[in-house]
């Protein structure tokens, strides 16, 4: 249904989340850090980005800030999933559609994903 990017340095977690989203019918692209993700976002324009916080090269917060600074890709919604930095992320509600704490409930995540996708005009994401 939609193209979703998952950014997480922890490979096992990223693939696990990717599988869950693919089961929901979405196409998933993984990235190991924010800088790689930014390059690919500019190329492929996902409908949604789900990102971790604590990562090498660029944190999830830095990624969201860089994303929003770019007018072309700024509108793409970002969901942050974090173990310890949830509170820090919530101080920036303008950057994140939602902030989920790890470990998260899969059903709740899927719910937030659908909400985020639904908020884009028309429901179905553009490619």
């Amino acid at each position, binding site marked *: 249904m939609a193209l979703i990017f998952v950014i997480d340095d922890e490979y096992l977690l990223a693939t696990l989340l990717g599988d869950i989203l693919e089961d929901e019918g979405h196409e998933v692209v993984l990235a*190991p850090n924010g800088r790689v993700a930014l390059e690919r976002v500019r190329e492929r324009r996902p409908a949604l980005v789900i990102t971790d916080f604590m990562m090498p090269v660029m944190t999830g917060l830095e990624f969201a800030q860089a994303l929003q600074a770019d007018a072309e890709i700024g509108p793409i919604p970002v969901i942050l999933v974090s173990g310890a930095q949830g509170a820090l992320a919530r101080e920036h509600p303008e950057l994140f559609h939602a902030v989920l704490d790890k470990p998260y409930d899969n059903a709740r995540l899927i719910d937030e994903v659908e909400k985020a996708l639904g908020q884009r005009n028309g429901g179905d994401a553009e490619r």
Partner: protein
Amino acid sequence: MRGTSRLTSGVDGLDQILDGGFIEGASYIILGQPGAGKTILSNQIAFNHVAQGGRVLYVTLLSESHEHLFQALDSMRFFDRSRLGREIIYVSVFQTLRDQGLGELVKLLRKETKRHQATLLVFDGLLNARDRAATDFDVKSFVAEVQGQAAFVGCTVLFLTSSSSSEVSPEHTMVDGVIELTDSIAGLRSIRQLQVRKSRGSRALDGLHKFEITTGGIITYPRLESLPPSRGADVAGQKLSTGLGPLDEILGGGLAAGSVTLIGGPTGSGKTSLGLHFLSRSGPAEPGLHFGFFEAPGQLRQKAAALGIGLPADDGGLTIERTPLAENLVDKLAHRLISQVRALGARRLFLDGLGGFERASVHPARLPEFFATLMDRLRAEGVTTVATWEMRDLLGGQVRLPYNDISATLDNLILLRQVEEDHALVRSISIQKVRSSGFDPAARALKISDRGLIIGDPLSLGAGSPSSR
């Protein structure tokens, strides 16, 4: 650049084992099978470093998720969630290694260390790095490069690996130190031990040291015999009363201050009673400590009361400690005993009995050296020690001491014996040895009454006397 200043581990006993701690800017391998304690150890060191103002970069490859690790560490007192993502960050670099190889991984580590201004780098997954390497040379280069760039910025490195030291591992030649953690079975018990297998530029305490994992993290107990020798205390010349006037006379005036006296005898012969007399002379000016394995404090006080022996109150200069005879660690017991003696400034110590240490021992062959070292350390504290040893034979004149060479380390030896004479139990007390003083060697009758121990007349040769040599 690497200097000789130290990064302290914050782990009890470990900095002593490492002769001050890790060398700042140096690199170490922490080796151990899964479950041995590497993760807890490295996190404990990391959080201690953060508490002292350091910054940590904790790098994993393919391992349990970071959140899972945090949940496990939540129960540890050193873990502080508020530091995550600030002074300590955890990142996984598996994908970089998988997609781009060791060379890129080295660069990433350099950039991340700089970006985060890390002063401690923990790299968990050296074994994985080896899997990815084409040859041993690649791993050696990897370690050398990471080590070099970390040293350049003064960052200390801990490489964690699951390989065992028995495997030939080329990277061991590159690092400055190798610490191995093991978890083995001794009899029915599990014993955790730590060994510094290599220590460049620092004189670590060699051999195996036991450790435990608690909610406070890891606590190590440096092997007593491996510690540098202690200086003697300056208590020469003074004598302490045993609490029994007649016994003081027989001993030539009392017990030499700082000496170690062993009371040997079968069960019921009066060893504890004698110890209680000794402790009855404790007070605020001469603090006493009872370190025992058998009687609880309440029971001991009851016994003293039944014997008519007055003991100071708990806040009046006498501390009663009891360690159950469960699965103990001798070094832990020794360290605790010495710390307590030191903390209390104890002048009178009653150790009831040495058998408690013996039962706790996993390697009985070291006991003679262990006891000798323990006694030296107690002497160095200036405390006068009276220790009991239970002989197995209930009746009879035979004397069997614990270990052939232990008598050489004792200063004084008192024997309590029991023989049957005309269907009556005859108790006796005799002095076998008093170092550097004259004494009366005759065996004397001993009675246990409600007025304490009563020493009677010398017994005739035969039953109750020392057996012929």
